[in-house]
């Protein structure tokens, strides 16, 4: 073993606590970084692999059921598709399983194969008879419906019963918790299940190479131009589906990457603080090392090595941990894509992290260690370790003027006696507190948005009717209930918007829809026919702004619309319209609502209400309390944020702890003198605690605006990735008391962290310390 290694190992043994701090911070930063990078690099590939394997459709188009089938068969040629599937007859159906009702798009298809959208049967088999149905695995798992279960179709008067005979994975639709689902029956079985107003033909198209968004849009435009008006009722492209598939992993990747950078920055700050501190406290030792023949580089090597060694250990643990931690999420993606899960990671990426992490730590350690290398031996031996002179004087004077007790005054002065160290410590505190602010704020913003989407507090019951039960009957039934305070009927139609490839799903309201809780970001809610609201995604892509008028197409007819407001809606990544049902009725007189948001009178028993309404028409009405719970991806993101905040807060505490440890060790002679002069152990602890409190308070105060800005930015990033602007209310989720309490909590935690070095300093043996001098 070389002299450098022997000395570095000996120093490591002596500085176990500091080695532990380095180990933990590097571990967290490496684990999070590897996890983020693994997710980022491995998420896209499985989707692409599954898409190729299943011959996924680049474009799916829904056609009006009255369109000529011969024309539809020619459509692949019109757009130059290399392969196609369909036309498949399809219809939206409702079925009942147990006491729950579900909506799916039933598609008539003879087999799961073909040249586009091959369905992978994961259990059971394809239907052989007209009373059999196949569901997506995602839907079956979410709703706990298994092969062999029987479901009753309630959207047609005959209410036929179907047996679930298989589960498939369909690459051309999102997962069941985020998007509506398809089910498949034999083509011959469909007529008995279909209702005229919800029937359509589905065509799948695949191109020789992956088309761009623009190419897809022009394909739809060409189809529209070559078919009779109103033939195209909807379309869906693979880019959107891929985004929906990956959105959870994408957001998580962003959050984790940000965290990893934070943790690495905190690590650099801690390493630099630590090495500076060690160098200062070891001046005499450095002098002796040089006197006995260590070269300047060897001295630097000793200091760098004692930091790099625990960092190496942390990398060796952290990188595999990060890779492993990303696996459940990747396995989840593989499962959703119907791919066999195989552990996915990149050795190259892991090695890159190992080398990168070590390099960053080594540089952070070497720069301050150079000071040790450059010291002249005699000066080093003679130089005292504690900071001298006016460092922290202004603070001390200010504290003295505030008539604070002397130990507090001294502690406050000590906190900034070494400005560089104080700043580096502040960085760790700042990152910790800012992350906590984000981790507190973002879930609240999510909840707020979720509440607006689910009408929490604005309506309590959602009633959905089948076409066999008339709208007027539903209204009569609901209005007859004494608890009913307000009913808003909601329908949906697709509207083609200029410059947008896919027809846009439109929310049509009848009743006082302005009180359903949708968040209007700018402008106002519609108040007259012809007025619409849209999310930012649509406004941006269609080059529209509030006040603009445009001509959409619905039911094959032009529909004059004027944008009066921007609304928040994450469905279809911000491609939707909100308007009065009467607006649509002008071009489609038969349009009717199919579900009803019911607001109950205060104090009404919602579950009793639901039971009562449900029993009046068990097959024709689906009645349930409004589901305001968060969707699974949001819960995962919330949890990850919470863990990240916890870890960064710990790193922040570690930073303060580390600095206090260095400060108290450096000042041990001063502390011994103070004890000799009559400072009690408690006063010593108060002095160290005051240092910690000041660092945490300053860090916390700077961190609050930073945290709030970060919360602002992350809200924007997440909202915009879902095609929306952030609702102003989502920014203002903190109350003033919390903004004060969060930094205060930081102060309390830092003071708790100060107890260890504080007690150590308080227990100083005066005689030994002063004698050693």
């Amino acid at each position, binding site marked *: 073993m070389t002299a450098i290694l022997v000395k570095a190992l000996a120093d490591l043994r002596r500085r176990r606590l500091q080695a532990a701090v380095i180990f933990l911070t590097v571990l967290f930063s490496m684990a999070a970084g590897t996890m983020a990078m693994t997710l980022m690099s491995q998420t896209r590939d499985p989707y692409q692999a599954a898409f190729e394997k299943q011959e996924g459709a680049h474009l799916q188009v829904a056609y009006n059921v009255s369109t000529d089938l011969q024309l539809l068969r020619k459509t692949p040629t019109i757009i130059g598709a290399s392969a196609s599937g369909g036309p498949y007859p399809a219809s939206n159906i409702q079925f009942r399983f147990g006491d729950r009702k579900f909506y799916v798009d039933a598609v008539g298809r003879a087999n799961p194969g073909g040249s586009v959208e091959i369905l992978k049967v994961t259990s059971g088999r394809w239907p052989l008879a007209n009373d059999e149905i196949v569901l997506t695995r995602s839907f079956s798992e979410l709703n706990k419906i298994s092969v062999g279960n029987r479901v009753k179709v309630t959207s047609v008067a005959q209410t036929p019963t179907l047996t679930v005979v298989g589960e498939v994975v369909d690459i051309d639709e999102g997962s069941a918790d985020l998007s509506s689902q398809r089910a498949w029956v034999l083509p011959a079985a469909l007529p008995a299940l279909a209702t005229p107003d919800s029937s359509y033909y589905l065509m799948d198209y695949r191109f020789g190479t992956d088309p761009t968004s623009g190419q897809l849009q022009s394909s739809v435009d060409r189809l529209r131009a070559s078919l009779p008006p109103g033939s195209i009722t909807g379309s869906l492209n693979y880019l959107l589906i891929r985004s929906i598939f990956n959105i959870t992993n994408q957001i998580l990747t962003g959050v984790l990457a940000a965290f990893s950078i934070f943790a690495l920055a905190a690590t650099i700050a801690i390493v630099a603080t630590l090495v500076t501190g060690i160098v200062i406290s070891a001046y005499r030792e450095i002098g002796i090392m040089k006197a006995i023949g260590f070269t300047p580089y060897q001295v630097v090597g000793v200091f760098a090595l004692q930091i790099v060694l625990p960092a190496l250990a942390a990398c060796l643990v952290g990188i595999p941990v990060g890779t492993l931690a990303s696996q459940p999420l990747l396995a989840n993606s593989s499962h959703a894509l119907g791919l066999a899960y195989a552990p996915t990671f990149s050795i190259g990426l892991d090695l890159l992290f190992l080398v990168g992490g070590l390099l960053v730590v080594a540089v952070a350690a070497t720069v301050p260690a150079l000071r040790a290398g450059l010291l002249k031996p005699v000066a080093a031996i003679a130089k005292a370790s504690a900071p*001298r002179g*006016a460092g922290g004087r202004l603070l001390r004077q200010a504290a003295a003027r505030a008539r604070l007790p002397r130990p507090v005054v001294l502690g406050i002065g000590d906190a900034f006696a070494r400005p560089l160290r104080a700043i580096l410590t502040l960085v760790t505190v700042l990152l910790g507190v800012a992350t906590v602010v984000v981790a507190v704020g973002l879930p609240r913003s999510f909840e707020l948005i979720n509440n607006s989407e689910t009408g929490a507090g604005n309506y309590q019951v959602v009633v959905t009717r089948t076409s066999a039960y008339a709208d007027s009957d539903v209204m009569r039934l609901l209005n007859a209930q004494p608890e009913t305070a307000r009913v808003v009927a909601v329908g949906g139609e697709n509207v083609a918007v200029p410059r947008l490839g896919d027809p846009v799903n439109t929310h049509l309201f009848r009743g006082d829809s302005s009180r359903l809780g949708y968040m209007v970001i700018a402008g106002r809610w519609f108040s007259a026919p012809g007025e619409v609201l849209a999310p930012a995604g649509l406004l941006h892509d269609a080059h529209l702004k509030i006040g603009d008028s445009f001509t959409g197409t619905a039911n094959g007819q032009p529909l004059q619309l004027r944008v009066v407001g921007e609304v928040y809606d994450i469905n279809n990544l911000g491609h939707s319209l909100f308007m009065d049902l009467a607006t649509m009725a002008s071009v489609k007189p038969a349009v009717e609502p199919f579900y009803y948001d019911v607001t109950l009178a205060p104090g009404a028993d919602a579950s009793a209400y639901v039971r009562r309404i449900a029993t009046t028409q068990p097959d024709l009405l689906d009645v349930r309390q409004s589901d305001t719970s968060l969707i699974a991806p949001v819960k995962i993101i919330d949890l990850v944020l919470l863990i990240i905040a916890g870890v960064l807060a710990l790193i922040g505490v570690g930073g303060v702890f580390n600095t206090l440890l260095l400060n108290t060790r450096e000042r041990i*002679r001063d502390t011994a003198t103070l004890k000799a*002069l009559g*400072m*009690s152990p408690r006063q010593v602890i108060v002095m160290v605690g005051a240092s910690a409190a000041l660092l945490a308070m300053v860090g916390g105060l700077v961190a609050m605006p930073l945290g709030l800005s970060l919360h602002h930015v992350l809200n924007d990033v997440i909202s915009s990735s879902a095609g929306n602007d952030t609702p102003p209310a989502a920014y203002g989720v903190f109350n003033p008391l919390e903004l004060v309490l969060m930094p205060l909590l930081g102060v309390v935690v830092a003071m708790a962290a100060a107890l260890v070095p504080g007690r150590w300093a308080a227990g100083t043996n005066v005689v030994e310390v*002063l004698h050693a001098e």
Partner: protein
Amino acid sequence: MDGRTLFRAFRDGGGGNGMSELVRLTGVTKVYQGGITGALNGMSVTVERGEFTAIMGPSGSGKSTMLNLVAGLDRPTSGTIAVGGTDLAKFSEAGLARFRRDHIGFVFQFFHLLPNLTALENVLIPAQLKGNPAPERARSLIDQLGITEIADRYPARLSGGQQQRVAIARALINSPTLLLADEPTGALDTHSGEQVMELLGQLHRDGQTILLVTHDAKLATRHAARVISVMDGKIVDDARLESPERAPSEVIRVRGEETSR
């Protein structure tokens, strides 16, 4: 135990220059960890109020240990130490800190000024720790000690003699019952050392009880009224000098023994 309460009776009972017992060591032994022989071996001695006592002896004789024990900076292995009639063993660590703050002034060989405080701030520290800041007294002490000019300087910019004067002012700020000085001239040049000793002599004449540790017999005999010689943790001589400056011979003999070793 609260040092302040304990010592009130002692203080009220004392005062003036009338001789009364202030410090009593009874059979005090101190063995350091790993030490085979004790630093102090059954030492018994008393110090009267108003006395200027010098403890003299060679390095390792136990004189500093004795001073540290009297200051409550360390605890004896066995035996009792009473200051003002109160056994120091009764105090907790915090109680000992209050005891030092209220009753002991300590002057160190290497001054031990806090490097990041000015001279004036250093002087004020013990009073502030006591919760009784006394800026006027600090100023007046600084004036008396002739360091007015350097009151706002940091220790790094002071000479050794100036630093020791600051340390003495700091030791006196709480009007201690007992002033302990451990080799106060050890790190000073002859001239500065002489000035510091003059200062201690003046304090004694003003009624201050002083316990001085030194290995310099000349200094001891010139200023102290009583010289206790220590060797191997035991008292080998205890001389009260009627007129210290004129009768040093006995003490010189002990010093001579040290130098001949």
